[in-house]
């Protein structure tokens, strides 16, 4: 619970009774997650008396399915807290997936050189974008929109436009079997990508709650001029944040390649919007300076549960679109309730 408490308490007011209301609402993304979870249990189809939604396999699948979006959303949270936005993450995922497959299979490098190299590519693209926003002062929306196109173009050129399959083995044009672990699960229940997602998430929560870097991020997002006058190294922090976001998108790309046994240049299209949705549902303000990482994790999981229960009930794909749209607005509205009291 405490994980979800917004550090620079979003709520405008404190004191007395108010404090209690606040504390309740501070975990409101968790509340939204819980509501959706309970609704999902009630709405779940059963088969032979078993609630399908609650089967271990299904819960594992939910977390696995949101793991990539979730990891991206963690990076996105930093960017949004800073007052920016990053539209390039989906394309960086695609580029990284291609990079993983190409380097590991076509070029025959092992895991050790490949993964760090791919992550470095993601971080460098992110850092360049950060530099363009911070120093040239171009709005991050437009920088990363361009970054999206460039990363997507690079991915297509690098791969020749086609997905590069990853086969495992020791021979040439085969990837080290160890890499297949991304496809596996621990004890056959908890998928590895889910574990990675939760690990990244918890690490991010710790970073955001305990480091000076996080304070700087909040300060810049809240009032950049004030941050600069307070001696915050604004450019450096911005570059670092976008680099982290790019890096995490690359992590998601590596996982993506591992999960799908392929690096495809068109993958990850539209992931940026899902990630941003998770961040906003989690209570982080797009105008920067306030929000929490725990909220983002809850937001991502909520989207995962929602997708899953709609699919389990075989809701028509188009109706799913409608329902998802409305639930997102409702979740964001819940968010608002809290601030509305101020």
């Amino acid at each position: 619970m405490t994980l979800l408490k917004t550090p620079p308490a979003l709520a405008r007011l404190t004191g007395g009774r108010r404090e209690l209301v606040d504390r309740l609402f501070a975990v409101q993304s968790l509340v939204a997650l819980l509501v959706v979870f309970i609704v999902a249990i009630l709405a779940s189809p059963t088969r032979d008396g078993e609630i399908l939604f609650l089967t271990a396999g299904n819960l594992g699948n939910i977390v696995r399915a949101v793991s990539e979006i979730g990891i991206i959303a963690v990076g996105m949270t930093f960017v949004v807290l800073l007052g920016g936005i990053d539209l390039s993450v989906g394309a960086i995922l695609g580029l990284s997936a291609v990079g993983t497959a190409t380097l590991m299979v076509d070029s025959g490098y092992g895991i050790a050189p490949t993964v760090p190299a791919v992550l470095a590519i993601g971080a460098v693209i992110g850092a360049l974008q950060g530099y363009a926003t911070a120093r040239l002062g171009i709005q991050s929306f437009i920088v990363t929109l361009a970054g999206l196109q460039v990363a997507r173009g690079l991915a297509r050129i690098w791969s020749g436009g086609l997905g590069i399959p990853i086969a495992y083995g020791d021979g040439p044009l085969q990837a080290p079997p160890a890499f297949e672990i991304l496809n596996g699960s621990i004890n056959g229940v908890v998928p590895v990508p889910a574990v990675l997602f939760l690990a990244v998430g918890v690490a991010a929560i710790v970073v955001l709650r305990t480091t000076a870097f996080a304070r700087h991020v909040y300060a810049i997002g809240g009032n950049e001029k004030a941050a600069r006058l307070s001696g915050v190294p604004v450019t450096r922090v911005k570059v670092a944040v976008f680099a982290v976001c790019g890096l995490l998108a690359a992590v998601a790309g590596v996982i993506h390649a591992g999960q799908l046994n392929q690096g495809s240049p068109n993958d990850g299209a539209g992931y940026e919007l899902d990630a941003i949705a998770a961040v906003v549902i989690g209570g982080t303000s797009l105008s920067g300076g306030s929000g929490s990482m725990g909220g983002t994790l809850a937001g991502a999981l909520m989207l995962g549960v929602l997708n899953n229960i709609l699919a389990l009930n075989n809701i028509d794909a188009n109706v799913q679109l409608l329902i998802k749209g409305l639930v997102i607005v409702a979740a964001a509205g819940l968010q608002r309730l809290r601030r509305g009291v101020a």
Partner: protein
Amino acid sequence: ACSVEKDDPAAANAACGPDRQYLIGMSQANNAEPYRQVMNNDVTTAAEAVKGFEVVVADAAQDNSKQVADVENFLTQKINLLIISPNEAKPLTAVVKKAYDAGIPVIVLDRKVEGDAYTAFIGGDNVAIGKAAGEFYATRLLPDGGKVIEIAGLPGSTPAAERAQGFRDGIAANPKIQIVASQPGDWLREKGQSVADALLKAHPDAAAIYAHNDPMAEGAYLAAKAAGLDKKIKFTGIDALPVPSGGIKAVEEGRLAATFQYATGGREAVDLAKKILIDCSKDVPRSTTLGTQQITAENAKDVYAKLGGS
């Protein structure tokens, strides 16, 4: 076609027989493509006619990961048979195998998956279709030769590459036919239009436009019409969907000179499902290649009716 043998786990485990209820999961790569929407419609319509069949469709919206999750969700629901039209081969292979190994018969439509962990494959042959189109150009459309503009599908997609290759094979017989330009129209009508706008500027003397699908051919037609070239240039497409917005109608109404059917395989898939589930047949064809059909002004109306177009 080869047939399923004794150690096929799907055939072994599948409970089958008439007078039972069957849940069939249909995993579609992308509902936003008309061809795939028609495939869904074909499957659902055909299944309605079979007592005991219930079909649920999941749309992966062109996302490999989403399609994997869709199949996983089907498995959670314990479907009795899986029909899948994969977004891409390799990424779906593992989960299809998982389904197959769990004893669920799998019918793969349109695009293959790797390996042999599926019950049956039904699909068209894009190279053959492209070749048929090319031969049509060589012998009927442009027997005296001429310049051809190609509007290709989404760069990097297999059908685009195969339809391009087949076409080149087909026109080889007539060396007077020359492809003067090729640009991607991403399968989209509006992109076909804007690409043709530019290409017709550069090649106003083109004799025909070969588009990799019908919507792009229609877009090219509109561009030519705006440039006053629609009477001079011939247009052909591919897919021939039996729906009002499809290529057959366009041929019937005289906008396209011809189109070439790329069957969805939806009905065939349900037929096969019926054999497996209701007839308990252990002997279904491992691979079915759907033929193509040339649609021109002469046969458009008949074919439309025959294919059940509404």
